């Protein structure tokens, strides 16, 4: 029950949102876009590793 993964992802989301707003204010929209993409990719990497773990569990359990 690794609950801290949820908080890690939420923290990344909040940081990216704040960074995005700051960069937009300072006039660098393209940087803001880059940070948004980077945040999403990082979170996606975490989620994909968890999904593959789930699918392996189901495969071994149900002999799929």
């Amino acid at each position, binding site marked *: 029950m690794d609950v801290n993964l949820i908080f890690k*992802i939420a923290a990344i*989301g909040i940081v990216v949102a704040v960074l995005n707003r700051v960069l937009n204010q300072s006039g660098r929209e393209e940087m803001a876009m880059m940070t948004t993409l980077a945040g*999403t990719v990082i979170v996606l990497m975490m989620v994909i590793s*968890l999904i593959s773990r789930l699918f392996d*569990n189901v495969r071994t359990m149900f002999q799929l």
Partner: protein
Amino acid sequence: MDIFKIVMIGIIAAVMAVILREEKPEIAMQVSLVTGLILFLFIISKLDSVITVLKYFAGKANIDILYFSTILKVIAIAYITEFGAQVCRDAGECAIASKIELAGKVLIMVLAIPILAALMDIMIKIVP
């Protein structure tokens, strides 16, 4: 009890997702996806003991192991299909969700064909 942990995690994750939904909907969707995954992993580990008991009874009642493993496969496919379809529906992609469900139904149908064939053979033997 475990149910308290599960409910607490669900509520906290829902609050996190709502916070992020306005600013970053894509990361909010992934927060809900990860929460679903964690709860699913927790349930799957509980299910293991139930399956071993069922297998033991199936063995005692000398039910053919093929039928029992097919039932397990169908349950697994149903679980994963429902999980994927629900995640897509949360993200607002109802078209993708319905396609996943259609694929799940077809796969379950394909798995059930041998049992259907066995049933038909028995039926044909009975009817003179």
